């Protein structure tokens, strides 16, 4: 089963035959396999490895330093005793040394002592047995020995020690050693505690992993279940939150915010589709009825021609409405294909004013302009012209009055270019003004004039795409449309 996207998918072409509902997870293996795949497991594993490695390194460092320290202390003790005994040999004689050794041997933590003669025979000492490798036994060096104390019980294992050999003179040799069993015991304890600690850590990690995975999986499962229902059409459903403020809660909160927006858009879309259906069906029905009537009544050729001409005109109007709807949809979707470029808004407005000026005069009005020069915005010229054409068309259609004037102005306010189109007609009541930009909304005064009620929706979409704001104001008399667009940086 290949999940790699095909080229067609990557290009956004509709894919066939491999739709999989969102959140429908595949079950590979059993529960354990699912637990192992969780992020919690991976995190736990990483923490475990890092923690154990750190602990090991730390303990190894401490124990090796401690062992070295102990060794050094033992050596210092051996050196001290050796030099004392050598000094006694120098100032007195062998017997004085023997005395000293005997005295020292009484102490509970006595060192190991042995004096041998020139042929290596032991003369005195506190050991019953001393085993070492003669090759190690160089004077002044520390070497390991094994020994048994005098009066030790039979079968008792030999003790380990480290020792140093020194030459007393006259062929006598002195060996002083210190027991290292305690030190070895210490290392063993450390090793054992390390082993125990690791076992505890691993056990704790395992427990916390299972706990974490299960609680995380539970939340994920809940979210997946909710998403599936939402995908299935329950748009009002939201992802569960437990107000704990954890990552899942935050994620669910933002997804829920997104769902609110989607639901709102969806509702808007439905309303628009219904409006569109209604407003397109009405003229289509008119055309259909007209043709139907012609078919049934077989009118005179001149009448038929007139009827057909009207039918064609109605079809053309429908096509224009479609075009307008498509443009609005395209602009509202902020299509990336509409690129905004630095545009001389002053020149564009002046051109449009020149274009509309004769038509304004034709309906007995005057177009007065006040256009500040060299105002540049980032825009799409065709859309901007379309926007102005809609506003000027409206002003010509609805602005008739005694004043007989349409004002078009452009100036800057802060970092905005402000376009003002004002007529001196009857204006629009406050209550209705806000609805003017909705699709297919037409005021009673407009019903008698041509148009589909899409002009201001188009203007709103275009202004929105340019990052601007649109305000419909009561100019008393007349309607003033104020558009603020961000200036080019």
């Amino acid at each position, binding site marked *: 089963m290949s999940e790699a996207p095909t080229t067609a998918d990557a290009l956004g072409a509709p894919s066939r035959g491999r739709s999989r509902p969102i959140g429908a997870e595949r079950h590979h293996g059993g529960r354990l396999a699912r637990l192992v795949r969780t992020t919690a497991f991976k995190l736990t594993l990483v923490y475990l490895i890092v923690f154990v490695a750190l602990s090991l390194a730390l303990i190894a460092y401490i124990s090796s330093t401690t062992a070295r320290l102990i060794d050094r202390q033992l050596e210092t003790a051996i050196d001290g005793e050796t030099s004392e005994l050598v000094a006694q040999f120098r100032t007195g004689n062998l017997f004085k040394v023997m005395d000293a050794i005997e005295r020292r041997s009484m102490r509970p933590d006595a060192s190991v002592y042995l004096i041998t003669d020139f042929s290596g025979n032991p003369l005195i000492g506190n050991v019953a047995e001393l085993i070492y490798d003669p090759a190690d036994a160089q004077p002044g060096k520390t070497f390991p020995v094994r020994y048994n104390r005098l009066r030790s019980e039979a079968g008792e294992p030999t003790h380990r020690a480290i020792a140093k050999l020194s030459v007393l003179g006259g062929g006598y040799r002195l060996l002083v050693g210190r027991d290292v069993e305690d030190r070895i015991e210490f290392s063993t304890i450390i090793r054992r505690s390390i082993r125990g600690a690791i076992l505890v850590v691993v056990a704790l990690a395992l427990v916390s992993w299972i706990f974490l995975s299960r609680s995380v999986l539970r939340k994920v499962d809940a979210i997946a279940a909710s998403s599936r229902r939402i995908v299935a059409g329950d748009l009002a459903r939201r992802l569960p939150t437990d107000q704990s403020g954890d990552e899942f809660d935050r994620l669910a909160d933002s997804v829920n915010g997104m769902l609110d927006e989607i639901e709102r858009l969806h509702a808007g879309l439905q309303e628009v589709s219904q409006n569109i259906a209604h407003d397109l069906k009405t003229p289509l029905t008119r055309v259909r009825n007209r043709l139907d009537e012609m078919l049934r009544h077989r009118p005179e050729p001149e009448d038929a021609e007139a009827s057909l001409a009207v039918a064609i005109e109605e079809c053309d109007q429908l096509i224009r409405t479609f*075009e307008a709807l498509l*443009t609005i949809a395209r602009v509202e979707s902020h299509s990336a294909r509409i690129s905004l470029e630095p545009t001389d808004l002053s020149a564009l407005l002046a051109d449009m004013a*020149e*274009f509309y000026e*004769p038509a304004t005069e*034709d309906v007995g009005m005057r177009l007065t302009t006040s256009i500040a020069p060299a105002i540049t915005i980032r825009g799409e010229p*065709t859309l901007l012209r379309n926007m102005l*054409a809609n506003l000027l*068309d409206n002003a010509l*259609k609805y602005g008739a009055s005694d004043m007989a004037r349409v004002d078009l102005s452009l100036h800057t306010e802060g970092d905005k270019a402000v376009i003002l189109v004002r007529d001196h007609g009857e204006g629009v009541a406050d209550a209705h003004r806000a609805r003017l930009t909705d699709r297919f909304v037409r005021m009673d005064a407009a019903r008698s004039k041509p148009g589909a009620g899409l002009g201001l929706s188009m203007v709103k979409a275009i202004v929105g795409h340019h990052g601007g704001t649109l305000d419909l104001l009561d100019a008393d008399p007349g309607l003033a449309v104020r558009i603020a667009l961000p200036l080019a940086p």
Partner: protein
Amino acid sequence: MKVLIVEDDTDAASYLARGLTEAGHTSEVAGDGETGLELASMNEYDVLIVDRMLPKRDGLSLIETLRAKDRQVPILVLSALSQVDDRVKGLRAGGDDYLTKPYAFTELLARIEALSRRKQTADFEAVYRVGDLELDRLSHTVSRAGKPVVLQPREFRLLEYLMRHAGQVVTRTMLLENVWDYHFDPQTNVIDVHISRLRGKIDKAFERPLVHTVRGAGYVIRADAD
């Protein structure tokens, strides 16, 4: 005029062919891009009408290939894609004009007639003459019956376009696109008012008007009154 229609929708193609025959032209139809390219490479046509979306080879690729072969035949691109950038793409590929479906047949006819004549009438002619009306493209002056007529720059361009296509119908959309380079659909009769102003300057004082309105289509400038 001999026209090649490259269009896969047989209904649309025969509608076009019938209309062209009625208007006194001959036409051939190619049902896909490859056939269209083959015919256009082999035969001489006055105009090509090419749909953008075609089986086997799409319209823009057909046009690009023809242009790469240095075939200069005028081409009208037909498309259901109506946005400005679609239009720009069609023209950039080598099309001479772009018309959006659905279209009025009169609009299409006016456009292909303008295209085909363009081949013959020189873009290089310095002076256009229609009857006793003269337009000097170099000095930007206009005179009728020897008397100078003062026009605004835009009026001059409007008259220039009409006179370049003297005897041919030009539609309001053609004027809007070619004189103003505007690509929107004004709801009011803006173009008509511009024409009537122009008439006021070049026709009003004279017995025989030159600019005529063609019902349901547009305007035509010609010397012989019908």
